[in-house]
């Protein structure tokens, strides 16, 4: 029997090493500053949340996004306010960059009634329907079918919207991911799947949870156009999301972005991070999305020390205000415990 010998095809593999920064240039100084400010705001917000968690002011599970800020900040800029967003349980950044005030997010984490979900959701279930921000889903992968449904509704009503669905590399192991890729592709639904590949499914490294480490390849199997993007580069994320959202509006078919990123902290506050080396973490930290972007802007002469100082100051004031808003919020009356299990009589959705 003749055996055909072939060289194995070269496959792009997700590496544990941070990608090198591309030659991105911001559109303007104002634009650059707004990107930096938003990333800083999310970073400082979460550092404050970390502190408040240690003080016992915030309880439950708290999943910090520190290191991944370029993903949500870049991604939201590439979407319109008519597009829908579905996020995971690591979604403080997504909520804030979607325009939900840090105060209502913080109040939600306090469990106060002035939180964005009346204190019923907490850190993992942030919602703001007025901004088409649909959670806040804490079962890994469960938001993906939900996003497919939002997109189906838009398609059936001939609306030119995109549903952006965020999930992590761990969700790729769930059946719903594969079912949803199949259905979205089969039905040509306007979904932008955004996989935030931070290389760990909770504490399990990609090469210990994925048989095929090239995650974009999983989407291509279902005929979905897929790209890999440097998630430490806010401009690269912004450009990729904008470009792909436009393509979805034009073609009416789903697209997939595998965004290569890294979380500098553990999976949650309970995670002692014993599963990865200090060297690996520090190597990724050299690509910190905020400081590396600032360096680019400094080198281009777009930003100076005074600008950074000003930004830090205004961000600090906004965080103080957010904490004040949360601290001064009321606890929901216990009499309201069973409110909103069902829609009140007479109300129509």
């Amino acid at each position: 029997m003749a055996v055909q010998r072939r060289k194995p095809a070269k496959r792009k593999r997700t590496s544990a090493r941070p990608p090198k920064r591309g030659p991105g240039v911001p559109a303007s100084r104002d634009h650059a500053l707004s990107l930096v400010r938003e990333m800083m705001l999310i970073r400082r917000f979460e550092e404050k949340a970390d502190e408040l968690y240690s003080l016992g002011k915030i309880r439950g599970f708290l999943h910090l996004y520190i290191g991944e800020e370029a993903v949500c900040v870049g991604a939201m800029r590439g979407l319109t306010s008519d597009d829908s967003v579905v996020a995971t349980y690591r979604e403080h950044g997504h909520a804030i960059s979607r325009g939900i005030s840090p105060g209502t997010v913080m109040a939600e984490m306090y469990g106060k009634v002035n939180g964005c979900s009346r204190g019923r959701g907490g850190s993992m279930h942030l919602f703001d329907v007025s901004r088409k921000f649909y959670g806040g889903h804490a079962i890994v992968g469960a938001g993906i079918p939900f996003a497919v449904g939002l997109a189906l509704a838009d398609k059936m009503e001939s609306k030119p919207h995109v549903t952006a669905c965020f999930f992590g590399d761990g969700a790729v192991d769930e059946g719903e991911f594969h079912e949803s890729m199949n259905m979205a592709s089969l039905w040509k639904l306007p979904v932008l799947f955004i996989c935030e590949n931070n290389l760990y499914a909770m504490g399990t490294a990609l090469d210990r949870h994925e048989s095929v480490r090239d995650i974009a390849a999983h989407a291509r199997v279902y005929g979905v156009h897929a790209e890999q993007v440097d998630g430490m580069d806010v401009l690269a994320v912004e450009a990729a999301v904008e470009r792909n959202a436009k393509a979805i509006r034009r073609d009416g078919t789903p697209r997939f972005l595998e965004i290569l990123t890294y979380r500098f902290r553990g999976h949650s506050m309970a995670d002692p991070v014993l599963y990865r080396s200090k060297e690996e973490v520090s190597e990724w930290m050299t690509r910190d999305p905020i400081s590396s972007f600032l360096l680019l802007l400094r080198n281009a002469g777009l930003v100076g020390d005074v600008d950074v100082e000003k930004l830090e100051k205004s961000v600090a004031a906004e965080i103080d205000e957010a904490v004040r808003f949360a601290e001064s919020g009321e606890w929901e009356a216990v009499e309201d415990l069973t409110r909103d299990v069902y829609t009140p009589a007479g109300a129509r959705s």
Partner: protein
Amino acid sequence: MKMTYREAVREGLRHVLKSDPRVFLMGEDVGRYGGAFAVSKGLLAEFGPDRIRDTPLSESTFTGAGIGAAIGGMRPIVEIMTVNFSMLALDQIVNSAAALRHMSGGQISVPLVVRMATGGGRQLAAQHSHSLEGWYAHVPGIKVLAPATPNDARGMLVAAIEDPDPVFIFEHATLYPVEGEVDDPFQPVDISRSTIRRAGTDVSIFAYGGSLGKALQASDDLTTAGISAEVVDIRVLRPLDEATILESVSRTHRVVVVDEMWRTGSFAGEISALIMEKAFYDLDAPVVRVCSAEVPMPYAKHMEAAALPQTANIVAAAQEILGRHG
């Protein structure tokens, strides 16, 4: 006017598809094939593939997509072939559909209708025959209906689509060919109330779905023995209409609950506990449950029949608590 339960569900579907352009049906084999139980036969030709959608065999995803589409402004009806298969969509149902409104602080309603077949009696063995509606009735945030008659099957579906919350309708698989009288002209059915199907004075028999016919037959048989049995069709498992149940007990003082779920942890157990908590002093005898045997459903006809509640078991239970043996 008479029609079968199958025709009644189809008429309900046709009614809501016609009256609201946001309504669409999706599920396995609902289109070309005409529905696994032939419920949706003809609807594809009438409403087209956009509104009668054949899905991949992906229960979790098409149920989740139903939730998303409902929130996105549509009025989806999801058909899951049998309750056994709905286990694959349990996460979407319990963790999303039921919870979203509460955990979003009331921002989101999920106007989704899910229909599925339930129950045994057709020799389909252990992976197509179980009755698990009581599991769903455990979950706050969803509504659970079990229509037992063609008129309820049609009218409850129409009421369900008008409801802003997720409504789950369990259609007992043996009922589809059963014929019954339906309102003409069409009347909506109240999906918040149980109903008394036959008034009686000596004993209350509580049943729903596929067990209702057996309860009514038992009531006939008991009449010949001089026993007046009231038959109450529970029909709304959540939120449960406690008033109708307690009111019946206050008149008859004796109770038989029929439920095709396994006895341990059955919905009948919930009815029984409710009566113990709220009507204990009305009782002249302990509540008796007639449920399925504690086995995965066997295939062989005689064994399946032995596993399921039957008319004779209901009659015997009623006679037992009345101290009159046949």
